[in-house]
């Protein structure tokens, strides 16, 4: 006698108690990494906007490198940097902290990989702000701080927001660098993509499919939210007729 779908799900859940930790780890990591990237990417974009010269090509190159390199290479570099013999690793060890194979490592890996997307979109968005608005603000006595927070950022905000969503999406899908730096420690560093990889490895197809569907659901929700935000609610009040 065929079982109803809910009963089937209950049966599976009963057989292998569902471990939801990859979902929470993934979301926590992605949100934290997005926040880190937003601040760092925006700061870098603002700094870069005010500096010109031949050295800047090098700065741009470094900022975009994580986008170009395979994530495993990025992860390997991070491992060298944060390992027990790496410069940052030694420094942190002296402070009594180990980054490698810990939850912060997932955040670092995701942040570094997502950073170029944020940096690129934030720069493009800031460059598109008409400089006359900034000049008008200055002649009205505004400090550079206020010019940025009161004029440049609000006008660049739609672009910056798009960059934030891209960065979140990239962080959510991060696999290679995370595996290199944070490993696969269930309940600690195992994010959804890593859980999928190891489920497939262990021939646990059902679990792999489940996480894949979860990933699709999160991504669709994200894109749907983005669409809703930009098309229905996206235009700021001042931008509507």
């Amino acid at each position: 006698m065929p079982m109803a779908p809910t009963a089937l799900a209950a049966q599976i859940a009963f057989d292998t108690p569902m471990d939801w930790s990859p979902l929470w780890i993934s979301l926590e990591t992605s949100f934290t990494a997005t926040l880190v990237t937003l601040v760092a990417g925006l700061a870098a974009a603002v700094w870069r906007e005010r500096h010109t010269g031949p050295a800047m090509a090098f700065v741009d190159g470094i900022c975009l490198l994580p986008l170009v390199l395979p994530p495993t290479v990025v992860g390997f570099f991070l491992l060298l940097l944060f390992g027990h013999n790496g410069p940052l690793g030694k420094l942190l060890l002296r402070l009594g902290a180990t980054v490698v194979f810990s939850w912060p490592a997932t955040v670092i890996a995701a942040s570094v990989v997502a950073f170029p997307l944020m940096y690129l979109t934030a720069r493009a968005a800031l460059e598109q702000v008409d400089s006359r608005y900034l000049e008008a603000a200055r002649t009205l006595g505004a400090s550079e701080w206020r010019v940025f927070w009161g004029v440049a950022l609000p006008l660049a905000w739609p672009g910056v927001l798009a960059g934030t969503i891209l960065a979140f999406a990239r962080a959510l899908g991060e696999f290679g660098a995370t595996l290199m730096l944070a490993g696969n420690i269930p309940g600690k560093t195992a994010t959804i993509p890593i859980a999928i990889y190891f489920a497939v490895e262990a021939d646990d197809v059902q679990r792999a499919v489940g996480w894949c569907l979860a990933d699709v659901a999160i991504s669709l929700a994200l894109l749907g939210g983005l669409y809703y935000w930009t098309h229905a609610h996206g235009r700021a009040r001042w931008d509507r007729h």
Partner: protein
Amino acid sequence: MSLEVQIEKKLPEFTLDVSFTADSTPLSILGPSGAGKTMLLRSIAGLERGARGRIALNGRALLDTENRVLVPARSRRIGILFQQFALFPHRTVAENICFGLQKLPRDQQARRLADVLERTHISGLGERYPRQLSGGEQQRVALARALAVEPEALLLDEPLSALDSHLRSQMEMQLQETFLAYRRPALLVTHNIEEAYRLSEQILVLSRGRVAALGAKDAIFRRPGSLEVARLTGCKNFSRARAISEHVVEALDWGCQLRVAQSLAGPVAHVGIRAHQLDFVEAGTEQENVFPCRLVRSAETPFRITLYLCLDRAPGESGEIPRVDLQAEVFKEKWQRFRDQPLPWHLRLAPESLFVMPD
């Protein structure tokens, strides 16, 4: 109240090299496109790097290259009005105007806001966003925003050129009213001669980065010191000239001798007269500088007509296409009166309207 400017700045095509002092009456900066007008204004406001020299506003140095003084734009207390308004699109009219008033207490902000809204006749628009306003309203908001911070000088960069003609004349009246009440240095950049004349007392003519003329508007329009200034202030009639005696020149291109009111002490290279100062008189009038002329062609504007004229040098000579010597601009009512009179007409170049130029 004074704004002293003495600056030099290298531009791709030429060097901007300007000195002048503006008092509390409006000064128009007139010049063709690309003369450096906008660059001059931006340098004074502190929005351009690389200007050298000295700028002082009411004795306070804003730029002094020798003494390494460079005051940033935010501390110059100079208001600026852009051609494209540059209102913050994400802020309401009231928020735009209060942008520069952050340091004032709330009640004072509100008072200033109400005051400038009234002075620019936009009292009902405080809650609107810039894109909900017409061009004229937007420029009024920009003016209100600039006035709200009570700047010590006001710079206007072609403030009317983005407006259509109706809004333009309304905004011009607004500026006139504002200047009357403002009584601080105000510089108006424009390439519209009539606008410059109507809105200011002093005129500075800028050409390729240099001051070609500077002074009271009447003097500049009546006696432009050079061919260039005459052209830039809208003069259409020129002839190469040679001094004959103290008050008589020979106009080589027009083929006639002219008495001029101006004393011919210095060198004389050209003589000129403005199109609207040419006068038509009855034949046989016993006056100086009256010459027979023929109409070559004409062009009309709604109220005036421009007549392209050829002086009758050798009566009877015909067949070839006559060359245009002079153009006269007259109101149509006047033209109705003599249009049907037989040719040649008699043109009078009044001695006091003629001016000679040394170059």
